[in-house]
């Protein structure tokens, strides 16, 4: 499953870059550009390491997502989905950011430290509504098992999808998506022109390659998680791929409409609107049940 995730993730990276290019009336990168980038980064002659923890951090960042992939059900392969459940998955999704924080910490670059402190604050901001959404969905389906959730949603076609049954929670989840992906209005922790890409500032060669791989997994994980919770999972590979690509394309399509939020504004925004909508959704779910 991680291999599927990586391949699909590469295609997603390509799609995002193509969307960005089209919105700016450019042609955009060629088809295999993400592959070229990763091969190039891993084949650099100089690999500047700042020590053991720096390397471990990248391994944690990639490994956390690889572990998360095994818990995500795809059509025909449930993996550990019916054993792990969504609570374990929520824990695993925090590991990459923490691993990155460890790795960046050893680089001792002030830009990196600023970046990672902003990234962790951002995680704090989007995790509250995210947990609300996860809690509401598990309450509504009466299970934390992702495979069962899909089965419940697939009983009566589109009518039983989470997005139809619980539109408020779906909306809160959609608001959280760009922040989870670190996309445009919420990319203050990367801020290339100000703090030189923040956490990535000291990453060159294979470290940067590792982060590129991590990005592929991240896009895939977020797409599949949203599809599983709200869009009825995948009946077959075709509809599954279509759904996850649409989910990932939404935040990118609206990314360039907003200016970048400062960290405190992002925190305020995230704790106000998605939390409000999520709490309302939760109330509706609890009254219904």
């Amino acid at each position: 499953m991680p291999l599927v995730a990586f391949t699909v993730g590469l295609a997603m990276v390509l799609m995002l870059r193509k969307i960005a290019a089209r919105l700016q009336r450019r042609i955009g990168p060629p088809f295999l550009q993400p592959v070229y980038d990763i091969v190039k980064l891993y084949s650099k002659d100089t690999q500047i390491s700042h020590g053991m923890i720096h390397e471990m951090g990248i391994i944690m960042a990639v490994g956390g997502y690889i572990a998360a992939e095994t818990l995500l059900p795809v059509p025909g392969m449930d993996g550990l989905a019916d054993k792990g459940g969504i609570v374990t998955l929520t824990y695993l999704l925090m590991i990459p950011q923490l691993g990155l924080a460890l790795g960046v910490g050893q680089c001792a670059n002030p830009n990196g430290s600023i970046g990672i402190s902003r990234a962790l604050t951002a995680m704090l901001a989007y995790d509250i509504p995210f947990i609300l959404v996860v809690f509401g969905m598990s309450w509504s389906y009466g299970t934390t098992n992702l495979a069962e959730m899909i089965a419940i949603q697939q009983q009566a076609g589109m009518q039983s999808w989470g997005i139809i049954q619980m539109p408020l929670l779906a909306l809160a989840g959609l608001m959280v998506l760009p922040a989870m992906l670190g996309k445009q209005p919420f990319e203050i922790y990367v801020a290339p022109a100000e703090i030189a890409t923040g956490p990535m500032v000291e990453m060159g060669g294979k470290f940067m390659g590792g982060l590129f791989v991590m990005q592929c997994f991240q896009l895939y994980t977020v797409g599949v998680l949203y599809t599983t919770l709200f869009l009825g999972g995948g009946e077959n590979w075709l509809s599954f791929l279509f759904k996850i690509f649409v989910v990932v394309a939404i935040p990118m399509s609206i990314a360039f409409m907003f200016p970048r939020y400062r960290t405190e504004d992002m925190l305020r925004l995230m704790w106000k609107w998605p939390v409000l909508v999520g709490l309302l959704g939760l109330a509706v779910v609890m009254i219904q049940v």
Partner: protein
Amino acid sequence: MSKNKTLTKKDQMQQDKAQDGQQMLVDFTRPRTNPMANVFDGLVRFCQSRSMFMLHYCTGCGAIELPPAMTSRFDMERLGIQPMVTPRQADILLITGYVSVKTLKRIILTYEQMAAPKYVIGICSCTVNGGMYWQSYATAKVLREYLPVDIYIAGCMPRPEAIIEGLQVLMDDIKTGRAENWKRYFQNYDYYLGNQQKLFGDHWQTPTDIISEARHYDLITENTLGKHTALLEKHQAPLQALEMTLQQNRERV
């Protein structure tokens, strides 16, 4: 287009040989006996040529031609060229326009922090021969004397088409394995350091230990060490961590 000439590495090497005879490019590439290894090397070189992250050191006027080259009119991303912001991530160092003595110090620091294989592109006439700043006392005229330059894109200023054409020449060089100028910095370090010392004074030193790096890459030649590196070793101070001054400042206020 006709005004802007793109100097390829071959022209530049000929000039090098004509001007400073002691420089030479020693070829360390071992012949690979395993045919699969050649295929692998070719693949890696192809990917390297199709994915170039550039760090633009834009202190000169040529910088103004880069935004159109990157944005919707000419779109460098379709060739796999992206801007990056730190030397650790970058492959290409773009130097646009004249280089003052003070600027050159930063350029050398940046260049030495970049990860090999790395390429330097000099844009505008000023990097070739000083251009209109030829008589300036504060300008480093010939960039090639301080750093190994892979491609010069001459012109005052070169148009985005010329910049993209120059980058395509570099792509071809990388693909065919000819763009190995970064090795010259290690192989002829004494020459480059000598020119740097002439400009910055005898106490010039950078945080990067080039000689150890050259040893690591097995690129030590008879031109790596010489009287200039001996001078460097005499003056070299060990690197120290910066003092934390936050508290002191607070007291002062």
